[in-house]
């Protein structure tokens, strides 16, 4: 594109915008009233406050869940800690018993 064409295009753009601006003047002149501005501000503030409260409540609830989990773990460890240890120790004997039961099952069904 030639420079002169570009210039012409930018002049046309400018003219388009100027004419459009003149056309749209009544809409451009519209301003909100003080009452409207006040209402929007109070709505925005209320919404912000509500959101902060919600966030605080949700984080408090998460904290409660985490705290309950930690406390539950320690209680569980105190009560069942030794039992867990016992089960691990007797794992082999449990397997043996199971093996015996399997053999017995096969045997009773044998004819």
């Amino acid at each position, binding site marked *: 594109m030639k420079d002169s064409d570009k210039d012409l295009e930018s002049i046309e753009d400018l003219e*388009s915008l100027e004419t459009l601006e003149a*056309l749209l003047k009544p809409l451009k002149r519209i301003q909100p009233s003080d009452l409207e*501005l006040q209402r*929007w*501000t109070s709505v925005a503030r209320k*919404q912000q406050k509500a959101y902060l409260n919600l966030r605080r409540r949700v984080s408090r609830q998460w904290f409660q869940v985490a705290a309950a989990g930690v406390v539950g773990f320690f209680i569980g460890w105190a009560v069942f800690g030794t039992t867990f240890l016992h089960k691990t120790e007797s794992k082999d004997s449990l397997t043996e018993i199971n093996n015996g039961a399997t053999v017995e099952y096969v045997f009773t069904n044998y004819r």
Partner: protein
Amino acid sequence: MNWEAAVKQIGPALLRYFMASFPRHLSDELVQETFIRLVRKVESREFDSSKGSLLKFSYGIARFMKLETLKSLPHERASEDVVFAAADTVSKSSDEEYETKEQVVRLRKAISKLPEIQQEIIALTLDDEMSLPEISEILEMPLGTIKSHIHRAKISLLGIMRIQEEINEGLGQRP
């Protein structure tokens, strides 16, 4: 965030944006609803200032709200004259004010006859702080396309308004 300052900066622009398509009472409600959504998004950190201004971000929400309203209230535009005319009769304080309101209604009627994308561009150009490159970013369109739409919209608007004037004059001359 200081919402009082934000409302003062963004509120008037949003009101004009909505008023390009809807009557004042509805535009007022839509601005309010836009602020509610805007606050929620800003507080939940969905707004990233490095990607653009708050005004640009709020136009994104406003656009969505406008489409939502046009879908849910398709007759709102058709009934606007009745609503506006009724409001004007009540609040007509001076001739000048009445004339401006009438001009706004006529203008909105003419804008509503344009293709959807041109309506959107016109609504965005109502904000003096919004540059053409910014409009092209919001609408995700090349700058050249925006310019040509503006040019076509201007021609169409002039034509529509001329026809409207002729019709009004014709009606006025009728005995």
